[in-house]
C-alpha cells in the first residue's frame, strides 16, 4: 500500500479502490494475496493471487526415485499429511500391484482419521480466530495436542509424517498407542458437546455465519470444489463412499450433508465429520487384525510398469487425486497432484462478489484453505 503509487483513476462509475489483503494478513493463514477491488465496504471483484509458496513438488517428483519422493507428500498439506502420503503410496501400489496386509490398512485408516480430526481442530480454531473469538482456538489446540503426541510416539514426527511405505507402514502400533487412542476418543465425546455449547449455539456466531457466503451445488460442480464445501451445499459426495479404497468398505460411518450451502452449513459439516471420524477410529481399533504391517516382496528399487494410474483419497479438505505416469524406470515420469484447496479457492472469485469484507473473510475461513495445498 505504498502511497506514492497513485492509482490511475480511469473513468469509473463509482469510486472504487484496490485493497490488498496481502500475503501477510492474519485472515489468510498463509501467503495468499487477495486483490479486492472495493467499493466502500463492499467487494466488487476479488482476485486471489497465489504462488508465494510455490515449491514445484511436481518437478521434484521427476528427479527423485519413487521412495525418495515420500517426504514430499507430507509437505504439500502439512495439516493432513497422512492423507497425502496415503494417496501417493496407494497410487504406486496400484501401479506396481503391491498387496498391503490388512493390519497395515487398518493402521492407515486410524492414522488418517486421527489426522483429519487434528486438521479439523486447527480449522475450527483458526476459523473462530477470523471471526474474533480467541479462546476456542486454545481449547481446540489443547485437544489437538493429544493427537499430535500420539502420532509423534507412533511415527516420530508431529506434522510431516513419513510413515507410509509401499506395501504397508514403517513401524507397528504398540499397545500404549492403542490405549492412548481409546482414551483420546473417550475424552473427545464430552469435548464435542463442550464445543457445541460454547460456540455452535452462540447467537453472535450464528448471526455471523447463517446466510453468509452461499455457494450453490451447481457452482461446486462447475468449479470442482469438494469435501466439506460440496457437502455443505447439499451434495453428499465423499470419496470414501463413492470410490471406497483401503478398508472403508467394511467400516460404517455416514457422510454429514447440509443443504443451505452457507458458512454455517460448512461449519456444521466439519463438526459432524469430527464425530464421524471418532466413530471410524473406534471401529477400526476394534477390528484391528494381527499380522505383519509390511509386505515382504517389495523390490528395493521399484520400477512400476509403464502407463498412468490415479488414486483418489478423501483428504481433510476434499477430494485429493494423485496421477502418476511411469515409464518403467525407477524415477517417476510425471506426478500430478489435484489438491482440494486449489479448486475450493477457485470459486472464491465468483462466490464473494458483492460481499462485505468481514463476510468475505468468513467465507475464506469456511473454505478451510491451506496455502501450500494451492501453490504446491
Amino acid at each position, binding site marked *: 500500500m505504498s*502511497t506514492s503509487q497513485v492509482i490511475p483513476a480511469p473513468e469509473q462509475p463509482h469510486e472504487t479502490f484496490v*485493497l490488498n489483503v496481502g500475503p501477510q494478513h*492474519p485472515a489468510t493463514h498463509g501467503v495468499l494475496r487477495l486483490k479486492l477491488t472495493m467499493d466502500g465496504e463492499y467487494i466488487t471483484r476479488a482476485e486471489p493471487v497465489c504462488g508465494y509458496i510455490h515449491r514445484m513438488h511436481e518437478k521434484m517428483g521427476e528427479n527423485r526415485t519413487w521412495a525418495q519422493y515420500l517426504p514430499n507428500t507430507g509437505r504439500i498439506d502439512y495439516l493432513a499429511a497422512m492423507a497425502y502420503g496415503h494417496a501417493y503410496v496407494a497410487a504406486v501400489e496400484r501401479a506396481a500391484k503391491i498387496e498391503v496386509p490388512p493390519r497395515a490398512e487398518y493402521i492407515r485408516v486410524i492414522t488418517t482419521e486421527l489426522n483429519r480430526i487434528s486438521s479439523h481442530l486447527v480449522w475450527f480454531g483458526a476459523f473462530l480466530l477470523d471471526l*474474533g473469538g480467541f479462546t476456542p482456538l486454545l481449547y481446540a489446540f489443547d485437544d489437538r495436542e493429544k493427537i499430535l503426541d500420539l502420532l509423534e510416539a507412533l511415527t516420530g514426527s508431529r506434522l510431516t509424517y513419513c510413515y507410509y511405505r509401499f506395501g504397508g507402514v514403517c513401524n507397528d502400533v504398540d499397545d500404549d498407542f492403542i490405549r492412548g487412542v481409546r482414551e483420546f476418543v473417550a475424552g473427545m465425546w464430552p469435548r464435542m458437546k463442550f464445543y457445541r455449547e460454547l460456540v455452535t449455539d*452462540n447467537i453472535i456466531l450464528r448471526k*455471523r455465519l447463517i446466510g453468509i457466503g452461499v455457494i450453490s451445488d451447481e457452482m461446486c460442480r462447475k468449479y470442482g470444489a469438494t469435501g466439506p464445501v460440496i457437502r455443505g451445499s447439499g451434495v453428499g459426495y465423499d470419496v470414501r463412499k463413492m470410490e471406497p479404497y483401503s478398508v472403508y468398505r467394511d467400516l460404517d460411518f455416514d457422510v454429514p450433508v447440509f443443504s443451505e450451502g452457507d458458512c454455517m452449513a460448512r461449519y456444521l459439516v466439519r463438526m459432524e465429520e469430527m464425530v464421524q471420524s471418532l466413530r471410524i477410529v473406534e471401529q477400526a481399533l476394534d477390528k484391528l487384525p494381527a499380522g505383519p504391517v509390511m509386505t515382504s516382496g517389495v523390490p528395493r528399487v521399484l520400477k512400476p510398469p509403464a502407463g498412468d494410474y490415479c488414486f483418489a483419497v478423501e483428504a481433510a479438505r476434499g477430494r485429493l487425486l494423485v496421477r502418476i505416469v511411469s515409464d518403467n524406470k525407477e524415477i517417476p515420469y510425471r506426478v500430478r497432484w489435484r489438491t482440494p484447496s486449489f479448486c475450493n479457492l477457485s470459486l472464491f472469485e465468483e462466490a464473494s462478489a458483492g460481499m462485505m469484507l*468481514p463476510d468475505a*473473510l468468513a467465507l475464506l475461513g469456511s473454505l478451510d484453505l491451506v496455502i501450500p495445498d494451492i501453490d504446491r
Partner: protein
Amino acid sequence: MSLPEPFRLLSFLVGVMAFVGFNAAYLVWVERKSAARFQRRPGPTEVGYAGLLQPIADGIKLLSKQLIVPPGADRILFMVAPLMVMIPAMISLVVLPFGGSLMARDINVGLLMMFAFGSINVMSIMLSGWSSRNKYAIISAARIVSQDVAYEIPMLLVVITLLMITGTMNLNEIVQQQEGWFWHWNLFRLNVNPLMPLTFLIFFTCMLAEINRAPFDMAEAESELVAGAFTEYAGMGFGVFFVAEYANIVVGCSFATVLFLGGWQSPFGLWSGVWWFLLKMYALVFTVIWVRWTFPRTQFYNLLNLSWQLLIPASLFTLILVAAMMKFL
C-alpha cells in the same frame, strides 16, 4: 483536609491522573492474566513475580521504539490524535465521586459533563484513522463513526430515564440517594422502573460498544483490519491508544457503578467508602474482560441493526414506561 481551593483541586487532579494511569497500566496485566486463565495457560510469569512488572516492561519497550509518521500522512493530526484519546478519559473522572468526600469537583451537571467528554473519544480515533493515510485505517475510521453514533443514542435514552428517576444531574446526590441496603441501589429500584435490570443491560452493552471492546470491536478488528485505526502507529503512539482503551474501560465501569450500583455505598449499609466503589468497578471491569474472551465479533451491519432496531426501541419504551409510572403512581 481543607486545603485552599486551588491546591485541593490540583491535588485531586494529580490523584485522578495517577489513578487512571496506574489503573490503565495494571489493567493490561489483569487482562492478560485473566485471558490466560480463561484459556488455561499461565499468562505472563517471567518479568517480576508472576509477571507483575510486565506492564512496566511493555511501557519501556514502547517508549524505546521510534515513532514513525508515515509519508504523506497529515503530520499534525497524526500527532494530536493519541493525545485526544487520553485527555477525555482523565477529565471525565474529575466529576466522579470516588468516596464520601473524595471528589475533585462537585458540579451539579456532572452527568452532562461526563457524557460530553465521552463522545470526544470517538472523534479522536476517527482522526487517527483518517490521518494515517492507510486503507485499513480509513475503513476502520468509517466504522467507528457509525458504530459510536448508533450506540450513543440508546445510552443517552437510558441515562435520561435514570435522570427522571433520580431527579438530579449531580453525581454526588445520585450516590447519596442510593444510601442503605443494596436494594436501594438504582439497579433494584423496581418500584419506579420495573425493567431496571434491562436498562442496566442496555447501558452495559452500549458502554462496550462505545469503547470498542469485546463483541463490538469492529474498529480494531485484528483479523480483518489488522490493527484498524492504529495500524500506522508505532512506539508510544500505539502505547497511548492501548492505555487509553483501558482508561476508557475504567471510566465506563466507574460511570456504571455510580449510576446503577450505588457508587461508594456499601451493600449492607455500613463502612461505605471508596473501597466499595473500587470493588464494584473492578467486578464490572472483570465482566468486560470476561465478555471479551468468550464471544466472537459481531458483523458490522448486524451491530448497527442491533442498536437501531433493538436497543433504541427498548430504551424508548422504558423511558415512556417510567414517565407514565411517575405520572400516575
